[in-house]
């Protein structure tokens, strides 16, 4: 410490993070001079920092008219819809034993979804969106999901959780033909973080075309989890050219969406992430959060964390509840720690603020 006082290192701007993420590994040292981030390059590369920073990632913006990943984060049981509209898809009725009867209207429909700016994937969807609407109940609630197949192929809904075999939606006899409907009915058990997906054959295609969603079962009220800012993150991928490899990876469908629109959270508030891996073709997916650690509740079937880490690995269908509290104000990147997935779209940013929107 030859200098008097503290070295002047300003908090990194988001652009600076981009430099670090996209450039430092390729082009050598990044020098912070207190004014700007300068990128020293190899091979006589003379790329302006601004230009290089914007070089990584997708070009343009997706339309959020039909699916808004920011809205999806904190929506369950159709809470994103206005009340009258919501009533068409979701009703809850108290039962004598203190639990609820939850009734859902689901439909399968073919729709082109924009998975990266200007790239449209011919998806099969639940209720017109990928992932399908998140459903959420408390352990012991009675679930009743009416499913209408408006798609072009036979589909089902296969829920993870306790249910009788007739409700499994997996055997060929369970397939709901186009134009037909089926009523799935079971008790929400066990509490934890689950999922649902189509189990019609061929399974691989029905899943990678977009028929999956999140099914959260909260612990019974007497042992409810502490309140938190809760977020749903579905790790998924899209094989746009049908070569059994994903061209686009994402958290919640849209490549690099949260890089442009960071997930806003509050410093000091508990954040609870419901992370479900639905990636097809690849053996595993992962989530790494920069600059901090989180508690892991695998499958969410317990009330206490099993580990504290900054990177978790999930195979397809595997899921975990992650809990953390942002300590510092600013931008924190999160992405798959398979660099390939990250650079193909599975990369985002949290923006921690003292007060939301400040």
């Amino acid at each position, binding site marked *: 410490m030859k200098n008097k006082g503290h070295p002047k290192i300003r908090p990194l701007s988001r652009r600076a993070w981009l430099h670090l993420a996209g450039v430092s590994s390729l082009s050598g040292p990044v020098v912070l001079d207190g004014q700007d981030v300068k990128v020293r390059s190899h091979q006589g590369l003379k*790329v302006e920092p601004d230009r290089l920073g914007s070089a990584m990632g997708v*070009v343009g913006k997706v339309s959020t008219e039909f699916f808004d990943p920011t809205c999806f984060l904190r929506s369950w049981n159709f809470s994103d819809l206005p009340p009258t509209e919501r009533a068409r898809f979701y009703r809850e009725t108290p039962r004598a034993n203190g639990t609820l009867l939850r009734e859902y209207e689901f439909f399968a429909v073919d729709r082109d979804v924009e998975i990266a700016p*200007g790239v449209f994937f011919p998806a099969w969807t639940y209720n017109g969106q990928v992932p399908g609407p998140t459903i959420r109940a408390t352990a012991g609630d009675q679930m009743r999901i009416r499913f209408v197949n408006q798609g072009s192929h036979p589909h089902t809904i296969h829920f993870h959780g306790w249910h009788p075999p007739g409700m499994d939606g997996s055997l060929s006899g369970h397939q709901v033909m186009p134009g037909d409907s089926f009523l799935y009915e079971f008790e929400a058990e066990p509490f934890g973080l689950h999922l649902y997906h189509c189990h019609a054959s061929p399974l691989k295609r029905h899943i990678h075309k977009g028929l999956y969603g999140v099914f959260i079962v909260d612990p019974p009220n007497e042992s409810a989890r502490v309140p938190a800012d809760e977020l749903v993150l579905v790790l998924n991928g899209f094989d746009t050219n049908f070569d059994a490899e994903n*061209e686009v990876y994402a958290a919640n469908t849209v490549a690099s969406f949260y890089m442009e629109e960071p997930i806003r959270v509050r410093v000091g508030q508990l954040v609870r992430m419901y992370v479900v891996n639905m990636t097809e073709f690849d053996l595993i997916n992962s989530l790494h959060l920069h600059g901090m650690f989180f508690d892991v509740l695998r499958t969410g079937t317990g009330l206490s964390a099993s580990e504290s880490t900054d990177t978790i690995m999930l195979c397809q269908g595997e899921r975990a509840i992650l809990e953390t509290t942002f300590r510092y104000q600013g931008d924190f990147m999160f992405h798959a720690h398979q660099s390939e997935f990250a650079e193909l779209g599975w990369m985002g940013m949290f923006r921690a603020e003292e007060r939301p929107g400040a």
Partner: protein
Amino acid sequence: MLDIGVQLRDLRFWLLALLPVCLLTCVLGLLFWAELGDAIRGEDYPPLEELIFQKVELSPEGFSATVFNDGPNPVTIAQLQIDDAYWSFAADPVGAVSHLGQATLTIPYPWVHGETHVLRLVTSTGATFDHEVAVAVSTPKADARFLGIFTLIGLYVGVIPVAIGLLWLPFVKQVGRKGLDFLLALTVGLLLFLLVDAVHDGFEAASRAPGSYQGIALFLFVALAAFVGLEVVGDRLRRSRLTAGMVEGSGWVLALLVATGIGLHNFGEGLAIGAAFALGEVSLGMVLIVGFALHNTTEGLAIVAPLANEKVRLGQLVQLGVLGGAPTIVGAWIGGLLYSPIWSVVCLAAGTGAIAQVVLQLGRQVVGGAPFARQMTSRPVAAGLLAGVVVMYVTGLVVG
């Protein structure tokens, strides 16, 4: 009355010519208007997308790629990946690329010298089109230095080897009838090998060219045109010499034709070298240079072989050397600066046709007036043919 009659007949004549054309236009119009294609395929038919990389240039700032739409439908390039990572780019023009249209993509990217990079376009429908930059090196810029380097390459590949080959002339003059037969046959063998090689290169280039341009047909017919064209030119030259009373000199005409043919062929070679540099394959370019230089020395021999019985001035020899070798320089310039798969097919085809014509000319010379089969199976000729092919094969083998 007579006039009107004639006019009417004229009118009828033209109407008869135009009637089928009009009908055809109507039918085509009807097809488009009725959208018959949709009726056959059904609605909602996925568009056929086909993009071809025409040119990829590397500069310290990144890549610049020219992309050609070889499919029937407009294609929108929505995203771009480099080595499985989305990367930003600017397209010119912006928006969909129409049938036979092209767009230039500018991609700022810190590419790694000497390593491989794969560019992948993702269209609005999610279709992907790849291009591999096998060995990343800076693409030469079209400045004086660039032209200088390519001139040098042209000299090394075309002019100097051919000139060295021409120095066999005094030797050729002393070998006698059998020796000359052998040398001419050797030349035919060399050129036959080149011909096969050229056809192969041409087909390869044709397969790389966008399908809309029907590369194989283009190659074959341009080659045929070059062949016929040179036959006509050769015939005229010979006749003008005959009428001018120069009975001697058929050897000079033949040498001139051989030089022209070889020149056209070398132009194609220059193009290939220049294009290899333009496509970022400098290492391939170097192999080509060494290979062509070795091959081309024998071309000089091919040019002087018909001059065994001629009086040749030094100026004429220089003329032949320039005709045979210098086109390599021009080819390298054009290949390096204006590379396009279609033009390379055309140029390779012209070279191939020229070689074929030269082979025929030399064959005639070898045969002379004797029956073809007997002359071809004479010992010096058979040995020469075989030797020519072997020399080319072995030099090719050694060079890689």
